[in-house]
């Protein structure tokens, strides 16, 4: 069977690509489209490094077939902020050192943004449960939680 032709929207821009039927979305994002902000950690949906939004749902892009992106709206870390205009979460993660090596960070930022869109004032416990699918082997999570809380406060103040 020939490669599949997929048309999708990523961070508001239309993309077209060819992929193998069994290829994962994270593989295509990184290796075909060169959107390498999304990281691949475990490839089994356990670590959350590949978290992206698809049609408004937080998903692991390693568990999504690239062909499934046809006609969908995908949002990745590349759509979250720019170097000159960081998202409040990105600002606070930098200030509070909510990251060390940085591999898990894009996934955590995408997941945390999804949380704050649903709940603008989450408790520590709510943040920990929401981010249970995002593993970090460096920080011990404390600064991650504090960064999310600080960003939530910034965003509530507007």
């Amino acid at each position: 069977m020939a490669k599949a032709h997929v048309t999708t929207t990523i961070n508001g821009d239309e993309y077209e690509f060819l992929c193998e039927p069994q290829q994962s979305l994270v593989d295509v994002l990184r290796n075909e489209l060169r959107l390498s902000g999304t990281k691949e950690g475990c490839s089994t949906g356990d670590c959350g490094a590949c978290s992206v939004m698809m049609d408004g749902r937080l998903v692991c892009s390693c568990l999504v077939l690239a062909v499934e992106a046809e006609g969908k709206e995908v949002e990745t870390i590349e759509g979250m902020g720019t170097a000159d205009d960081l998202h409040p979460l990105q600002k606070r993660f930098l200030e509070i050192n909510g990251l060390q090596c940085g591999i898990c960070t894009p996934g955590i930022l995408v997941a945390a943004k999804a949380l704050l869109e649903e709940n603008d004032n989450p408790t520590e416990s709510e943040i920990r449960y929401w981010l249970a699918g995002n593993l970090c082997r460096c920080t011990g999570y404390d600064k991650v939680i504090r960064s999310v809380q600080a960003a939530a406060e910034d965003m509530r103040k507007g």
Partner: protein
Amino acid sequence: MDQVRYEAPNSLDAAVGLLSGSDGMAKIFAGGTDVMVQIHSDLIEPDLIVNVKNIPELTGITHSNGSFTVGAATPVVEMQEHKEFCKTWPGVIEGAELIGSVQVKGRSTIVGNLCNASPAADSVPPCIAAGATVRIVGPNGERQAAVEDIVLGPRKTSLEKGEIIVSTTFPARPPHSGDCYLRLTPRTEMDIAIVGAGVNLTLDDAGTCIAARVSLGAVAPRFLLVKECADALIGSKVDDEALAAMAKAASAAADPISDKRGTKEYRIKTAAVMARRAAEKALERAREN
């Protein structure tokens, strides 16, 4: 890996035709949270992947005459967002919510959890306790089955080649009914059950238990629907004595293995503890409505 064929039909007939007409390994793909892992770790090499998420009968939740029907490709997150379902079947939601992280629940389905046929699947015991049934369509027509009749053992189901589970139906709820699912794990989140217990019971106006179903997971090769547990509750006021008898019956029914999460002895002992706690919570809920 050889070339895989991918199809995303938009009718049940087309999906059944593809699955029953395939010579090699055909995999139904809904949430994909098990299938993707199996493909990428080379556990399976499907020749055909059939994405069933475009088939109308498999998507969404419908509510009529008190019963709920959940399309087989409906992700757990949509069940969590359905207020009426959550209010009616809190125990089913408790099980479904344990399937994985927020990311995984955005994709995974309770029917996928069932058909993956792990005896430790968290959403299955509460569905069995609820008396849920599944609608199955295949090359020889349509049939209904109780959820407890689907999993035959680890990775084995009673589904025939070409058959698809279309939806799960939860029966209408009599007054004074409550359910609960509890499980024991080494961690508080993102882990696999050592023991899982789903309890569903109904009281009469005087508070006597008139119906009960108790299902255990992770303590046998199959999910258990333990009649002796139900018998211990039915006819009682669900008092200490009845709960103790039910807990004892849960331990007696357990036939687990030892693994890194827990020994056989530990699972047998905690089956009683989890069943009792789940029954106490189900009772509390039954008294509230």
